[in-house]
């Protein structure tokens, strides 16, 4: 204990004169492959999304931002060690597929996630398998392959930071992001 306290005091005392000669701050964000960059380059999607979905006819309102619209829902959850999209999420995926078919400028990134158990690198592959599964369903519904990018965060971005089964269930998921969001 004494060791940690002394080290902490030393660290606090010395924090004022930090030098970081080899620090390379992350700032040169590469645009390639970044869906938000793609959206900036293309036409703005907000404001042009006037086509109705599922009976919605409000021309000015973006249905994706309407909590009452199914397009507001963006997460698909998975069972442990599973990549199968459960039937309950099919209406959600169909709604987004329809929206993408109707809005030619829209693009999506599907972000796959895994729970924290096991290898971080293998979990990237597990999350990828989940985002690929959602993409496959979308393309079967007629969505162009080129406007859907599937990526994975593995276990790195849990929705719930807990360490029990209930938390893990929230973390095994695919999140849908539209370019520009």
């Amino acid at each position, binding site marked *: 204990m*004494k*060791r*940690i306290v*002394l*080290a*902490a005091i*030393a*660290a606090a005392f*010395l*924090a004022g*004169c*930090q*030098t*970081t*000669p*080899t*620090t*390379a*701050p*992350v700032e040169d*964000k*590469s645009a*390639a*492959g*970044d*869906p*938000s960059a793609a959206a900036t380059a293309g036409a703005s999607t907000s404001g042009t999304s006037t086509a109705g979905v599922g009976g919605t006819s409000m021309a000015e309102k973006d249905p994706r931002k309407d909590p009452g619209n199914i397009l507001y829902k963006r997460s698909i959850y998975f069972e442990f060690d599973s990549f199968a999209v459960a039937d309950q999420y099919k209406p959600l995926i169909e709604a987004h597929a329809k929206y993408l078919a109707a809005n030619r400028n829209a693009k999506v*990134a599907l*972000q796959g996630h895994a729970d924290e*158990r*096991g*290898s*971080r*690198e*293998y979990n*990237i*592959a*597990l999350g*990828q*398998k989940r985002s*690929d599964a959602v993409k496959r369903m979308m393309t079967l519904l007629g969505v162009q392959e080129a406007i859907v*990018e*599937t*990526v*994975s*965060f*593995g276990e*790195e*971005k849990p929705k719930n930071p807990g*360490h029990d089964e209930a938390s893990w269930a929230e973390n095994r998921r695919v999140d849908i*992001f539209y370019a520009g969001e």
Partner: protein
Amino acid sequence: MHRSLRLLAVLVALFALPFSAVRAQLTIEIVGGAGTAIPIAVVPFGGESAFPLGVSGIVGADLQRSGMFKLVAADAVVPRPTRAEDVQVDVWRGRGADAVVVGSMQPLPDGRVDVRFALVDAVKQSTLAAMSYTVAPAQFRATAHKIADVIYEKLTGDRGVFSTKIAYITKAGARYQLLVADADGADPQTIVTSNEPLLSPRWSPDGTRIAYVSFEAKKPVVYVQNLATGGRQAVANFRGSNSSPAWSPDGRQLAVTLTKDGGSQLFVMAADGSGVRRVMSSNAIDTEAHFTPDGGSLLYTSDRGGSPQIYRLNLGSGAVERLTFDGSYNVSARPLPDGKGFVFVRRDGGRFQIATQDYATRQVQVLTAGPGDESPSIAPNGRLILYANEVGGRGILAAVSSDGRIKQRLVAPATDVREPAWGPYARP
């Protein structure tokens, strides 16, 4: 058995300052040791008290931390020997020491210091090593590590790793950092800071560059960063996910996992990202590749058999061989430098443990108890394995000897530490 190196930790915390930023310093605690540690006396060096940071204390701490040595108290012996010829072996044998380290630190007119030491075998009454170094005070730590390396090699037959460096990732709130520090945790330097996750740091074989994965572009992208300049390059930034970099032994190539052609598949490219070629095709997950020491094969994780297991791909013939069969989850293989086996992570019930497997006998030796042990990284001499585990929801680093007998814990106050990577031998 729980000897914490209090004095060293405080000295390190105080003296790291003039040369570098003080960060969450890793301190090493030995939590289990070898039964057959060599008893050794490290006598305070003559003239050492004239300097704020001595050398003998660091040498002793290095040796003790390795778990291969047991320090014999030396301060009560008067007069204090500083040269091999002054060592009265009977006195040291009587105190239980099999070996004695003596030395001196002599200031030179130009401000540098003549540091010399001798290692005496108290049993055979012979001098095993005697060397001198002319160094600036700022190099005292490095010099102490070199001396400890010489002693370790003379007495164990294996090369020491006290002069090597480690890399690791910390998470504090939403801030991720990739740091490089001395193998004893001293002198941590931040080389990348990001608000998005960082993963998979991997040292180039010459120790000049680190490959890693950053999520700063809202997806995994592989970078290679030069440690001297801080300059970096995105070497794998394809559509989809780019992850799991591994250097070839000659430092010219990187193996990576890419999803650009569908699925997580293995590719090899030049270290600058050019010449990307797929080395295998499967409809399963293939990832976590590491080159074998001869550069001719990759060990990797695949779920082609229904559960994640470790396979070996011969890069010349394309032949694939499954290596693990025991259990339903065997991942994160790292080839041992002797070419005889590999370290990996296995799941036993719900516990993740570090284990080794021999290629020829397929015998598995479980080294740790878990429950959350992962990301193993092997010291260049093959004797110690650094890994991450989680205690109370917070990640810490730990080390275990490849025979499982020596266990250490590396503690950084109030920081979540993960993804350790042990660097190569320092260039002479």
